[in-house]
């Protein structure tokens, strides 16, 4: 088998050895239930609170405003469905964008069935929504605005701070899905001005199955399911203490290395694009590179069929992705690329490479050479 080059860090990331160690230790030593009154319970609770404080600090939030969830999807569901249900007396209108992750779009579609009215803002070819369009869509009965911090497929950053500043002067709440930004962008909930913010652990070299939702004090959110009184009654269920501990460890490592990592990732991306040019590959970047996260690049390869191209990359030991997997393992063209460039053609021929820990310039060279080779033979 060819050596593996993992360029799918936006899908998920390898866990750091320190994180694995932290989780293993937590599983071995602190197996108690954080709600138990005995010492084992107190031990677990102590770890959980430590993790919570550490994570709260990374976004300059109060630890009491952090609700642990099973990941980004649950955090988004809790924010959207929980907030909409708790505030339905105040209005039925919600604004989001057409390029959100399915973990935002699909709960909102469910809310539409419950009688809520949802506006999906379009994006232009830069991939960003505009504040003016948001203002135009805003209504007296708008209760919630949810705009992602950066896009998971293109890396395009949204003007969340500007939008939040506008929303602050209304009766609506502001949520942002920051899953793809956490660990790379300097997220400060006060500076951003958001009321809710979703985060996932496995995108930052932490464990799968853990995430959190920041909920600003005073923001009413109904829990999604009934049960015990954990997480200040916002999220029933025995807390995943090892997951939280591993999550906090990953966040700690990310925070320490953030600026260096951003510089390294930007360099990888830049190198990748110039190597593709050297290989005489005909391509265009989806979205405006200057406004993207450093770790994601989404490229359009005219005339290339993604389903075949990704398999060929896989057979060469290069792992990337495109669109989202749909039923029966087949691929669905990306709704994000379709929103940016109407028509299916570009979405069927676009591919995402996302970089992270472990990637080297040599891997990028090899990848560009393989892409050149595949395109030449097709």
């Amino acid at each position: 088998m060819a050596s593996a080059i993992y360029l799918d860090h936006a899908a998920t990331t390898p866990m750091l050895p320190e994180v694995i160690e932290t989780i293993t230790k937590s599983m071995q030593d602190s197996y108690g239930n954080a709600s138990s009154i005995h010492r084992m319970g107190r031990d677990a609770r102590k770890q959980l609170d430590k993790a919570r404080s550490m994570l709260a600090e990374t976004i300059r939030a109060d630890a009491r405003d952090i609700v642990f969830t099973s990941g980004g999807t649950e955090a988004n569901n809790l924010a959207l469905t929980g907030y909409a249900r708790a505030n339905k007396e105040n209005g039925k209108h919600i604004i989001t964008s057409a390029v959100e992750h399915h973990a935002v779009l699909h709960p909102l579609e469910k809310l539409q069935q419950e009688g809520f009215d949802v506006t999906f803002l379009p994006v232009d070819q830069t991939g960003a929504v505009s504040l003016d369009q948001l203002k135009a869509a805003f209504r007296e009965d708008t209760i919630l605005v949810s705009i992602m911090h950066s896009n998971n497929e293109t890396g395009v950053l949204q003007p969340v701070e500007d939008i939040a500043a506008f929303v602050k002067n209304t009766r609506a709440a502001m949520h942002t899905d920051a899953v793809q930004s956490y660990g790379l962008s300097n997220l400060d909930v006060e500076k951003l001005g958001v009321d809710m913010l979703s985060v996932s652990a496995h995108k930052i070299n932490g464990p799968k199955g853990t995430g959190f939702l920041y909920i600003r004090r005073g923001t009413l959110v109904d829990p999604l399911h009934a049960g015990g009184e954990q997480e200040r009654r916002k999220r029933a269920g025995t807390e995943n203490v090892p997951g939280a501990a591993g999550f906090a460890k990953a966040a700690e490592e990310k925070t320490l290395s953030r600026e260096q990592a951003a510089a390294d990732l930007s360099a990888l991306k830049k190198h990748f694009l110039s190597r593709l040019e050297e290989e005489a590959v005909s391509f265009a970047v989806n979205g405006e590179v200057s406004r993207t996260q450093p770790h994601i690049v989404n490229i359009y390869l005219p005339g290339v069929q993604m389903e075949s191209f990704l398999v060929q990359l896989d057979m060469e030991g290069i792992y990337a992705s495109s669109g989202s997997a749909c039923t029966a393992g087949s691929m669905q063209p990306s709704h994000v690329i379709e929103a940016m460039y109407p028509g299916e053609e570009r979405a069927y021929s676009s591919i995402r490479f996302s970089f992270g820990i472990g990637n080297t310039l040599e891997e990028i060279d090899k990848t560009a050479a393989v892409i050149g080779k595949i395109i030449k033979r097709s």
Partner: protein
Amino acid sequence: MAVKQKAPEDTRVVVGMSGGVDSSVTAALLKDQGYEVIGIFMKNWDDTDGSGFCTATEDFDDVVKVCNQLDIPYYAVNFEKKYWDLVFTYFLDEYRAGRTPNPDVMCNKEIKFQAFLQHALSLGADYLATGHYAQVETDSDGNVTMKRGVDNNKDQTYFLNQLSQSQIEQVMFPLGGMNKQKVREIAEEKGLATAKKKDSTGICFIGERNFKDFLQSFLPAQPGSMVTVDGEVKGSHEGLMYYTLGQRQGLGIGGAGEPWFVIRKDLENNNLIVGQGYHNDGLYSDELEASGLNWINKEYTEPFDCTAKFRYRQADQAVTVYPSADGSARVVFHEPQRAVTPGQSVVFYDGDICLGGATIEYAVKKEESVEV
């Protein structure tokens, strides 16, 4: 099996895997023979229902299980749009025209051995293998022919009659030389996850659902009358597309005498013509006109004798074929044939070799030249 100048371990074979036992065993046999095997599932149809159940998802799960057992990579490819445009649209058009389409023939021609074959080749595959019961043979001159599968009950050459020389050159049918029972035995021996899976029945996109309900959701039914050849009204029909020639079940005509059968469809007046007796004279014809003639290997331009099938699993019938340069053909039966159905394939054989086939346009009765 076609022979290329490569050792198995240097030969990449894409196996079209459906999640059934046949394609599972196909992949297993090729893996045993040392080929580099890649399993690919084709998704051609989405039948996801309200509860989220989708046949394709279940089938793909089985592909995943088998590929993991065999330790081969697997992928999926989506041809829903192509399938809709090239197969399903044809399927509806034929019913609209009062004919009985054969979507499997069209799927093999346009999807499996066209779009899917191209996909496999784009992945650097030397061959595409499927679990069809048919055999590909290359003679010393490099001529490639397609022969019947040895399991006479399973032989699928009928559905493969529209393939070309260039298509079958790149195809492997590892099950062609064995019977179904042997395939099941191999699956059991190897403990494949699909060993006990029921064979799929009917048209792939309809599956186990009620055919009438399915068709009705795409084509509006136009009820009309059931009349005899003499014009006597015997009842009403629910829509001509729901009936096939020679059909006995579901007519609901009682009374004395022999049972009633569908003789033909009068599209113009929306009448279903019925008659009594399995061997009703109106059901028999002496020759047929066909279009879309395809020769797999040798091109026939002059009239010749061979055997033919007018429907799947029918015993071979002696015929004389009069091919025309425009791709049409007149096929004269040596014995009158019952219920020759427009829209179905007529497939020609020379012994075990499948020569090719065409689409039946209409059957002809010598004395009166009745168009059915």
